[in-house]
């Protein structure tokens, strides 16, 4: 499974990288950690004429935590997220999801930008980006633009990026400390792509009812999905056993997964309901634990 032929460049600036991509006539691709791209080349599922390596471009690997939210540079690696103590409180949902990504060696090289650009339907970060209404900043020949996550993922391995655009950053909105959240996924083995997963959060109003619910799922469609029907079940209600059961049913009813060699459609449908159920359960458990703490 030797790689096909390609030209290679490692530019030292973003502008140079964009220009190189543009020169490729749609046949050039950026490479970051290569954890998703190189296997595609090994299977000869992709045959770019030019790889533009982003590793020498400065300032793409910063994690910034401010009142405006969390910004992850495109070259931030999974291990950088895991190792950053600020994110435990600044974005616990992100941190929890990233703990499920791949394996030790992959986490040392795989990047945020690479994952978003690759857009695997069962990947964690696209689901987080979608659920949290992230904004993806991309640089192209005509400058930089922001693409809302809701507009970014178009299908399996397909995004709204133009062939001459490079992701430079993903911006997650600020995370209130009292927010409730949960992340659950079920994979065949640890580190495998999930057969289904749920990433969700909600806030509570003064009477303890959920508001602003955001429920995203992965692995049950050709891209991550936000389940408005589930959000409608949660909003305006206390998250108790009854609500959770209704949310589980609504989740299963609102997806149309496919059969494949790992799982049947019926199973995935049931599984995503269970993932929503368990994610809500963990949100409640965390809520009770924080209420039980010192005032």
């Amino acid at each position, binding site marked *: 499974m030797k790689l096909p032929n390609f030209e*290679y460049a490692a530019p030292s600036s973003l502008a140079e990288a964009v220009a190189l991509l543009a020169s490729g006539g749609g046949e050039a691709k950026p490479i970051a950690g290569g954890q998703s791209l190189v296997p595609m*080349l090994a299977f000869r599922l992709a045959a770019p004429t030019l790889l533009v*390596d982003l590793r020498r471009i400065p300032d793409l690997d910063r994690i910034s935590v401010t009142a405006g939210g969390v910004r992850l540079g495109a070259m931030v690696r999974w291990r950088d997220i895991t190792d950053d103590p600020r994110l435990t409180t600044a974005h616990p949902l992100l941190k929890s999801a990233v703990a499920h990504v791949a394996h030790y060696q992959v986490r040392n090289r795989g990047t945020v930008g690479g994952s978003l650009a690759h857009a695997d339907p069962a990947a964690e970060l696209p689901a987080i980006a979608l659920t949290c209404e992230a904004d993806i900043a991309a640089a192209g020949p005509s400058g930089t633009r922001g693409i809302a996550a809701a507009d970014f993922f178009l299908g399996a391995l397909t995004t709204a990026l133009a062939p001459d655009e490079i992701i430079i950053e993903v911006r997650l909105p600020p995370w209130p400390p009292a927010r409730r959240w949960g992340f659950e996924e079920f994979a065949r083995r640890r580190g495998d792509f999930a057969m289904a997963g749920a990433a969700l959060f909600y806030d509570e109003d003064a009477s303890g009812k959920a508001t602003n619910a955001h429920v995203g799922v992965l692995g049950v469609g050709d891209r991550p999905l936000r389940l408005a029907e589930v959000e409608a079940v949660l909003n305006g209600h206390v998250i108790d056993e009854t609500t959770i059961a209704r949310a589980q049913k609504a989740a299963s009813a609102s997806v149309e997964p496919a059969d494949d060699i790992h799982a049947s459609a019926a199973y995935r449908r049931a599984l995503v309901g269970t993932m929503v159920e368990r994610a809500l359960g963990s949100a409640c458990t965390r809520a009770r634990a924080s209420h039980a703490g010192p005032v």
Partner: protein
Amino acid sequence: MPVRFEVNGKNVEVEVEPRLTLADCLRHNLRLTGTHVGCEHGVCGACTVIVDGAAVRACLMLAVQAENTKVVTVEGLSRDDGLTPLQASFRKHHALQCGFCTPGMITTAHALLSEEPDADAERVREVLSGNLCRCTGYVSIVEAVLDARAAYRKREGTAP
């Protein structure tokens, strides 16, 4: 194109096609055949090497991406006059049979214990879950890595 990097403490320069992986470069251009190729799509971990202190899959890295980095392979974690504490622990616990996955297990375990000498069994299993073995069933490998922690805590025989 030329690429210059450090391997096991030595500076090297090789002339490679961009499409050559780091794994193939180490094995065939530099004749360091201790790093093994088991799948070429980033799943089995037999090709694990350490680049700038981090364990990585050499089959998913292009040789040209190793420019200006420090690479350590299983040969760089070995001695001519005997076994390192990690290797001795593997031998003591019978943590290898055919030996094909072993270099990847050694480099991964070394990287882990260098950073986390107090890793517990759960953590060791989590980290090693990215390295496939078909012979041992893993039980003895986990035991060997746990038993090697003492040397890493004391930093005895555990360079680089």
